[in-house]
């Protein structure tokens, strides 16, 4: 062993050029952020922003106490909200199943034609928020629960199909070989080798999406697609803050309830 003084006294984690490069990268990132911040705010009225604490105090004081008697008018829209989410999820899942099988590399009938179409359906469904779908559907078929259900379904297709087709692509291939080797037909291979393997993902994704959809369906009423959002819209329009706070409380309760239900379901099925 050498004398202690023979060892270098300096230790650096990265070399000099590495450090320089990473500094440059960080610097340009900060510059980008500052630039974006300024661009974003060039129309901001700072008077309103600085006044926000006062506004906050004002609105909070108006919100309290909630108008509890309004609750009797909320039960029906809350029930509608849950129905929009549940029926929408069911419809979306039913449509997502074929899309997922068409999009997965190992089950698609055609890599060149069918798969890109399925992937586009998934991407389109995922990029458009359910509120936008609702906006379109209300314009087309008029306000009501049906528009909300279809909006939730259309948004759910992409989500469920994406997670499912990824699961299909990751299945264990020897199990597929084993079923193929028995002389099974393609449909039988799907039934015996593929479906059991993706079942947990399928159930988990469906429950997860239902949970999200409860949340999403609380706002669909803002554009006229039914549910508690309708009441929220009315109350906001009339500046009835005590009703708004009651609506918030009921939404919170619904969301907590849905989380409890989905946790129970997950435990029961998986």
């Amino acid at each position, binding site marked *: 062993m050498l004398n202690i003084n023979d060892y270098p006294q300096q230790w650096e984690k990265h070399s000099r050029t590495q450090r320089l490069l990473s500094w440059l990268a960080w610097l340009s990132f900060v510059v*980008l*952020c500052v630039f*974006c*911040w300024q*661009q*974003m*705010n060039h*129309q*901001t*009225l700072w008077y*309103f*922003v600085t006044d*926000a604490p006062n*506004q*906050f105090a004002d*609105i909070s004081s108006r919100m309290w106490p909630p108008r509890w008697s309004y609750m009797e008018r909320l039960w029906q829209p809350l*029930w*509608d909200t849950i*129905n929009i989410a*549940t*029926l929408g999820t069911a419809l979306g899942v039913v449509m997502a199943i074929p899309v997922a099988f068409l999009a997965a590399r190992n089950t698609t009938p055609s890599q060149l034609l069918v798969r890109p179409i399925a992937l586009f359906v998934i*991407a*389109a469904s*995922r*990029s*458009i*928020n359910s*509120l*936008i779908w609702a*906006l*379109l559907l209300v*314009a*087309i*078929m*008029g306000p*009501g*629960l*049906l528009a909300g*259900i279809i909006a939730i379904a259309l948004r759910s297709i992409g989500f469920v199909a994406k997670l499912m087709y990824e699961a299909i692509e990751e299945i264990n291939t020897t199990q597929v070989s084993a079923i193929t080797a028995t002389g099974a037909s393609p449909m039988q291979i799907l039934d015996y080798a593929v479906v059991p393997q993706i079942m947990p993902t399928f159930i988990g994704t469906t429950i997860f999406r239902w949970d999200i959809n409860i*949340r*999403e369906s*609380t*706002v669909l009423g*803002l*554009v006229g697609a039914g549910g508690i959002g309708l009441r*929220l819209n009315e109350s*906001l329009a009339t500046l009835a803050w005590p009703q708004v706070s009651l609506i*918030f409380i009921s*939404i*919170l309760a619904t*969301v*907590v309830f849905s989380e409890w239900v989905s946790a129970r379901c997950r435990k029961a099925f998986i």
Partner: protein
Amino acid sequence: MQSASDYPTTWRKPPLISTPSIRYGLWLLAAVYLFFAFDSVEVNWQRVWEGGERGWRFVQAFLNPDFTSRWSNIVDGIYESLTMTLCATVAGVILSIPFGLGSARNLAPTPVYLFCRSFIAIARSFQEIIIAILCVALFGFGAFAGFVTLTFATIGFLAKLFAEEIEEIDPASLTAMRATGANWLQQVNYAVQPQVMPRLIGLSLYRLDINFRESAVIGIVGAGGIGATLNTAMDRYEYDSAAAILLVIILLVMLAEFASGQIRKRIH
């Protein structure tokens, strides 16, 4: 071995729920629910039928979108959405780090833990749109309200996942750091940060994706971005412009998803 004819000739797959009363009870419950749920959906078929023509017009608009007549509005809206998304994601990530540390049970003292957890729970329970409505009421119309909305939602999303990630770290390295006499910050820096950093970056990029998608809707309630442009186009029944906006959104989301996927692949 018995002779073949002694074996049973029927077999039924054992049901998932073995108690028959619970099994049939659940089926009945589901049937009753479905009946009432469908019953609550009132459909004005007349209106839906009339809407068919509008729907057809919309499909046509999608096949023949009009990018030109509202192009400058689209560009402004997209620009606002993008700047809003980036600022909100950066602010949200920075703020979610203290909240994430605060809601990790193995790091935070109980009062801090409870405070951070309840903040996260509230942030997650409300849809972005509801938060946007409140922010517009507080900060006035425009991108700033959208920025605050997305930042708030980002904290709720990321802090929870960070906290879960931190709670799953290998406790041995944390103990080892404590044993060296490192203070709290040093513990976080040496034992926690290296273990959660890759996930943190991955999740932040994922949230960038989500924030862009959300930025396209919060405009509907006045919080700036491309959503406002879309809402105007829909209000004026300019379906061809609306289709153009939707196509631009889809394209950008796909691009963002591809880019963040590539970056995440590099990091791992």
